[in-house]
């Protein structure tokens, strides 16, 4: 059986969190299947990254360094990965469901003519009985993802050629601890790129490491005037950190100077559609709810039973956020 591969996303030599999360998940899957975890690290001047990848659980790092692989563009990356796939025949190939992963993975899956499941939130190994075609498969990757606007959860199986390809949402797989005593091998790869692989030119590239990315956050813990003080926002931050989310605020809390404007949700702030929005001490004025009502799940915590926020919430907790939030943190940490 082939190994479990993870595409490593990096920007300027800094490895994306999602890639380390996937390495940790790959370690679990590979141990269950009795195979290796192997990382695909592409770019230029990246030798500093390999120890990190090994410390998180990679047995092998395929390292392809070439000036034509920096900055990231799809075609040369797809060429290098495709060549490696054909040579080594991995069983599973995982990408982060990021902007890069979601444009790169399908290009490779199409050329290889194999299945690709987008935005998985859970992965496990199981057998599959294809009743329609009367075929059974053992030790396949169960690719679990929300679909239909998040209204259903589907388990998908790739029944064709390996690799079984998936993109996985950021923040859903747990990042384990690095262990510097782990051993692994770095295999240098010489990219075989043709002119056709480098026809797309990057004329300009403007990016900043954003400190706040509310739009991309899947979990948001937001506070309003009811939070009461700048100090109390630390409680929201603790909850956001525990759940892997971001802190946001209503205009009232921003105007009070408790939170910076970049975190304001609503008509004069950012519009968000996270998987979970926890509204703490927010009354629920339309100016705020316009920016968050499309969240998949809304929890409202407020000590006013008549707060309008309860009318759009899926879960209503009428109580003091100073006691409820610590309970949430405790319950999540105990379970996760």
């Amino acid at each position, binding site marked *: 059986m082939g190994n479990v591969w993870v595409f490593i996303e990096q920007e300027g030599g800094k490895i994306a969190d999602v890639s380390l999360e996937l390495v940790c998940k790959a370690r679990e899957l590979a141990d269950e299947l009795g195979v290796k975890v192997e990382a695909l690290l592409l770019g230029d001047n990246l030798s500093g990254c390999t120890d990190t990848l090994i410390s998180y659980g990679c047995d092998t790092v395929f390292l392809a360094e070439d000036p034509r692989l920096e900055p990231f563009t*799809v075609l040369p990356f797809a060429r290098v990965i495709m060549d490696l796939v054909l040579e080594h025949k991995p069983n599973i190939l995982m990408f982060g469901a*990021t*902007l*890069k992963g*979601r*444009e790169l993975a*399908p*290009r490779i*899956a*199409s050329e290889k003519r194999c*299945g*690709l499941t*987008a*935005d998985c*939130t859970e992965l496990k190994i199981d057998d599959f009985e*294809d009743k329609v075609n009367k075929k059974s498969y053992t030790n396949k990757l169960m690719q*679990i993802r929300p*679909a*239909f*606007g*998040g*209204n*259903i*959860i*589907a*388990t*998908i*199986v790739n*029944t064709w050629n390996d690799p079984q390809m998936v993109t996985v949402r950021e923040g859903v797989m747990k990042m384990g601890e690095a262990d510097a005593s782990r051993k692994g091998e770095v295999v240098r790869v010489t990219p075989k790129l043709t002119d056709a692989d480098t*026809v*797309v*030119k990057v*004329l*300009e*590239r*403007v*990016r900043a*490491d*954003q400190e706040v*990315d509310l739009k991309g956050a899947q979990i948001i813990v937001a506070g309003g005037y009811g939070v009461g003080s700048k100090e109390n926002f630390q409680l929201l931050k603790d909850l956001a950190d525990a759940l892997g989310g971001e802190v946001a605020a209503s205009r009232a809390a921003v105007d009070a100077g408790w939170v910076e404007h970049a975190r304001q949700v609503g008509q004069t702030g950012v519009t968000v559609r996270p998987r979970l929005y926890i509204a703490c001490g927010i009354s629920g004025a339309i100016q705020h709810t316009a920016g968050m009502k*499309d969240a998949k*799940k809304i*929890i409202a*915590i407020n000590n006013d039973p008549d707060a309008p926020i309860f009318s759009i*919430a*899926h*879960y*209503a*907790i*009428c*109580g003091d956020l100073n*006691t*409820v939030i610590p*309970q*949430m943190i*405790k*319950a*999540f940490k105990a*379970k*996760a």
Partner: protein
Amino acid sequence: MSRTVLVFVKQVPDTQNITGDAMTPEGTVNRAALPAIFNPEDLNALEMALQLKDRYGMHVTVATMGPPKAAEILRDCLCRGADEAILLTDRAFAGADTLATSYALSCCAAKVQDVAVVLCGRQAIDGDTAQVGPQLSEKMQSPQICYAEDVVEMTENSITVRRRIDGGYEVLQSPLPALLTVVDSNDPRPMAARRIMKYKRAKTMSEIRAALGGAEADAAAVSAEAARLDAAGLLIREWSAADAGADLSRTGLAGSPTKVKQVMSVVLTAGEAKKVEPTADGVTALIHELIADHTLG
């Protein structure tokens, strides 16, 4: 210079506006009750194509793969300014995953003459995979630019595009033909009243046949009507898998490597909030529920 911009569009169930009517008594989604709408980002792709028509005099051809009813969104495209429309419809396309879909679309694209640029919405709101654009691009052996926000410039043999990246943007230049996937970055123009008056009468062959009596329709009358509509620019081309030259082992269910093992409906609380007691037990039960339904992970 190639003159055609080919836009692929999709009719989708409106998964973003699920109302009480679309809920079953068990709290799950009744798909049949959801209205079929124009996939939002495909409207952005169409708008980008129409801007290329305005700026460079491009010919805009739209195409969709779907059931006969999907002709509705092709009429919508014509009313907004598209020049020509193709409906790719065949039972052999049913049940396709993204690989089989992109193959079918690539067969369609190969039959369209003189294509300089192919545009798709970034993703469709029923599957949210964003895979078909890049897969189609690979099948066409063309470069791809995903997450396009705007075309900076187009020349005889290249296109310069501003596109979204994490934390900023890039300006990329690609030779033509190229495929772009388009994000929600422009304001799609509405249908023009004068165009509605004309193009609401556009029909596919199946629709012409149905209007003239269905299976009983006189073949000569159908051909005559089709010729009349075609001359007036009102015939929506209707292609089967055979018309598109598709290999049936690569379309539909047969051409789809991914199989659905299981589907679970997420039970939504429509309207009424669930009350959670502000106690350790209440909060713990809530957190466990959210972990179980994958909201927290």
